[in-house]
């Protein structure tokens, strides 16, 4: 019986220590959604003093038409009348997704795009150069216009351009509506 007690106590102590440490740390170091938005804002408007003003209620907006291209997670209105949209573009590499913060100004032009996260992209190429190429795109342009600017459109770049396109459509609906 003795040689059972030791493994069990060792395993219990290790897993409890690890679990406890993780539980405490994940509470302490929890990065709130609001903090992530401020990070995105600082990255986009590095100089200006821009604050989060108001969260747009998305239930009124009908986005089902673009569902296969991408999904909107949230939309915020900023103090300098820009809109910040957290949108997820689909159809990435091995059907993964790319989630980005898209900043769109009042006359529906893309101010800047910042990457938030991506899933399922095991072979994600470094796409840092890609996001700059979306600046200046407007809501009136079609989905092909936006995705064609991506040189050597790897699949993961498609997902990024889809997320920008869906964000543009949302803001045009929000302002138009």
């Amino acid at each position, binding site marked *: 019986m003795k040689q059972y007690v030791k493994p069990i106590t060792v395993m219990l102590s290790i897993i409890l220590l690890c*679990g406890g440490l993780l539980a405490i740390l994940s509470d302490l170091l929890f990065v709130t959604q609001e903090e992530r938005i401020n990070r995105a804002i600082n990255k986009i408007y590095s100089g200006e003093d821009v604050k989060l003003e108001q969260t747009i209620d998305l239930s009124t907006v009908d986005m089902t038409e673009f569902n296969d291209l991408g999904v909107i997670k949230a939309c915020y209105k900023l103090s300098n009348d820009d809109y910040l949209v957290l949108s997820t573009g689909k159809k990435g590499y*091995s059907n*993964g997704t790319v989630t980005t913060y898209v900043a769109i100004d009042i006359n529906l032009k893309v101010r800047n795009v910042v990457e938030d996260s991506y*899933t399922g992209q*095991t072979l994600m190429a470094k796409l840092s150069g890609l996001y700059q190429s979306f600046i200046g795109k407007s809501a009136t342009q079609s989905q092909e216009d936006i995705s064609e600017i991506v040189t050597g459109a790897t699949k993961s770049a498609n997902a990024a351009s889809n997320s920008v396109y869906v964000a543009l459509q949302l803001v045009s609906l929000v302002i138009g509506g």
Partner: protein
Amino acid sequence: MGTLLLIALTATFINNFVVVQFLGICPFLGVSKDTKSAFGMGVAVTFIMTLTCLITYPIYTSILVPLGLEYLEIIVFIFVIASLVQMIESVLKKFSPTLYNSMGIYLPLITTNCAVLGVAELVIDVGTAEALGLASMGLLNSVAYGFFGGIGFLISIVIMSGLREKLKNAPFNKHLKGFPIAMITATFIAMAFYVFSMISL
């Protein structure tokens, strides 16, 4: 019945864990020197992948998600896989020591086998369910996905070991012997399987 067949095709060929998603390459190269140990490794990995999906899917959906403890996912999954590998190790040591010796260090490395953790995370990801046209992956579907994923692993590792045994007698540069030639064979297998990643059911 349709979904099971669909899962069988995607997990074994279209989304083959080794040759399309490039998960589980360490044992794929390490143990494929001869077909017997490669087959043994393939069966062990299939067994573990099926059991992993059987255990981790219900734990995730019925315990972690309702209580909002998603951040424990990696720890719990890896712990379950490691325990399964530990059991497999003692079973193999008892019933087939030759297979146990031929696997050597690669048996405990099944725990870090990206394919096993990969399948555990794949079945709980809502994207895979959508790709198969399901609201969410039921327990039966995820276990089927784990099993056929393992079969896909088994097929590719046995193909690889067959090729490598043939290569033993082929005349090529001394320095290419061993892993380099295995890598180059894998390049051709990867090219062949590339066609599968083009099919979308």
